[in-house]
């Protein structure tokens, strides 16, 4: 709503008000087509104005009905009556309106400025478009799904809201040759996005930019140069299976399949696993899962349901040196660890099959110890696999001992740590 003019404007009703620089567009024309019932005409019709600017408008009454004059006419803007001190009778048939410091339009179809007769009937209307020119779009980011398409997203600009309908157009071209192309599928992943579904070249850079246009002007983003192979993402790994590791109550085995669309290209792909306890919202992420399709989570709580997800980064595809883009997470898969009277350690880490050390502190220390043993104690057969076998054996003998001694699951914790006699 415009700021009203008080005091001096009211006192100087018979003098032209001391207005700020005006945008005066007095287009006096015939009644508009399609508005044959109008008995007045507003000038200007449908002006476009900058926020904070001023407007002088006039409502000129036709001679029908006879005797119609400007006396008694009044203005409304978006349904609200404007203060009389903003209006001035210019002559017998014309009422003027002075608006200053205009705010941005309330709706994109334009603010409704209406001239009314004394009895409230509508004589004529005009729509004001008050806003800002578009700012340069920024933060263009793009990704390609399986090297088949390209989706880009951008941010409108520092201030965002222009109060006017602003049209965004994503343009792209091959860097060294070719014509400008315009993306056609908009709003695919949000309001400022576009999808190029096909006919994209590999091994050659593209230039991509966004043009923004509205009634008050246009702006163009910086140009983003990229190679499709450097922004590849893929589908989440399918067929994620989570299962117990024998009787080990603090471990779960996770297996998955490489995303099939890129399965012949994922030599250097990276994977990430995240897991959480059933009734928790905190995910733990296991990062160090290089190019393999299985992993063992360790240090879990016994007798607990875990949800597990996996995602893939097609790093190094066709020799690309860029970081790659992670896929979405796979659908959650759930499994539970075996119950045990002994509660396991609270941490968790991924332990790939084959006995490579994980990132857990206990196992890290164990790895160091085993390494030292191999060097100094000539224990060449030592490995994590041997360690896990020992742990499984320990649990089995612990259970057997408890059965022999008639200890119930809720009974006292067993104390045996070494091999059974």
């Amino acid at each position: 709503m415009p700021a009203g003019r008080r005091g001096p404007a009211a006192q100087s009703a018979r003098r032209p008000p001391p207005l700020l620089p005006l945008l005066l567009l007095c287009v006096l024309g015939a009644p508009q087509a399609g508005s044959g019932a109008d008995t007045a005409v507003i000038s200007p019709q449908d002006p476009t104005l900058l926020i904070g600017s001023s407007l002088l408008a006039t409502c000129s009454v036709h001679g029908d009905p006879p005797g119609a004059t400007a006396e008694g006419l009044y203005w409304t803007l978006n349904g609200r009556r404007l203060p009389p001190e903003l209006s001035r009778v210019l002559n017998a048939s014309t009422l003027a309106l002075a608006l200053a410091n205009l705010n941005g339009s309330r709706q994109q179809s334009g603010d409704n400025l209406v001239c009314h007769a004394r009895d409230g009937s509508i004589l004529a209307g005009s729509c004001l478009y008050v806003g800002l020119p578009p700012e340069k779009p920024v933060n263009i980011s793009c990704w390609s799904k399986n090297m088949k398409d390209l989706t880009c997203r951008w941010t409108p600009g520092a201030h965002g809201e222009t109060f006017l309908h602003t049209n965004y157009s994503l343009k792209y071209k091959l860097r060294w040759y070719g014509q400008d192309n315009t993306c056609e599928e908009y709003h695919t992943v949000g309001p400022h996005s576009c999808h190029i579904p096909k006919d994209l070249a590999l091994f050659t850079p593209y230039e991509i930019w966004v043009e923004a246009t509205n009634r008050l002007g246009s702006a163009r983003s910086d140009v983003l140069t990229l190679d499709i192979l450097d922004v590849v993402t893929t589908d989440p790994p399918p067929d994620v299976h989570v299962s117990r590791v024998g009787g080990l109550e603090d471990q779960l085995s996770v297996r998955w399949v490489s995303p099939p669309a890129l399965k012949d290209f994922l030599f250097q792909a990276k994977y990430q696993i995240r897991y959480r306890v059933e009734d928790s919202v905190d995910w733990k992420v296991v990062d160090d899962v290089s190019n393999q399709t299985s992993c063992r989570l360790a240090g879990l709580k016994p007798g607990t349901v875990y949800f597990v997800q996996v995602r893939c980064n097609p790093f190094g595809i066709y020799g690309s040196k860029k970081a790659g883009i992670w896929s979405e997470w796979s659908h959650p898969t759930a499994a539970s660890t075996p119950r045990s009277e002994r509660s396991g350690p609270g941490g968790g880490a991924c332990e790939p099959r084959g006995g490579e050390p994980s990132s857990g502190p206990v196992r890290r220390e164990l790895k160091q110890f085993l390494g030292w043993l191999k060097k100094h104690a000539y224990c060449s057969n030592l490995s994590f696999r041997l360690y896990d076998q020992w742990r499984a054996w320990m649990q089995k003998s612990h259970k057997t001992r408890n059965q022999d001694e008639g200890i119930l699951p809720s009974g006292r914790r067993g104390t045996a740590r070494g091999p059974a006699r």
Partner: protein
Amino acid sequence: MGFPDRPRAPQGGQKPKDPQADSSVSLLPHLEAKIRQTHSLAHLLTKYAEQLLQEYVQLQGDPFGLPSFSPPRLPVAGLSAPAPSHAGLPVHERLRLDAAALAALPPLLDVVRRRQAELNPRAQRLLRRLEDAARQARALGAAVEALLAALGAANRGPRAEPPTATASAASAAGVFPAKVLGLRVCGLYREWLSRTEGDLGQLLAGGPA
């Protein structure tokens, strides 16, 4: 849609019956089912028309949505509101007028949709409703005409072509008159749907011809 044969001329010098004059004409069951079905369609579309009107006024901004808003009732080429005398006409005549109005509405709704695509390009739901309204008006109009044909009361004259003047006029008009015109068209759409629903209801009830 299968309809029975038209009533044959009676034998033996009897005066032919005028189905329009005889209020006790019994409707065959499948014809009655068709009337009921068309009536239900009109009822549903009347609800949609109400929703269209609500959405339309909301997107034009105040004062369009205000109860006190009383814009000039602009004439729309080729279509007017149901006359006050409409209710007093024989039901078949009323349905003929309903069908004619429903045939005139789609191009008007298309004009409104095109204009709204410029004024409110992001209002996808409104644009979709306007597109659906044009299609549904055609469908209901065709259904009413089929009923009239089955009743032997179809208009045998050439159908008047929808006027194009409104389209060209609307495109040249200022934004405010275009908004008002769109409101008028959406209002007429709702009025004629409601009128059609009422007239079909009377036909179903075997009301006065």
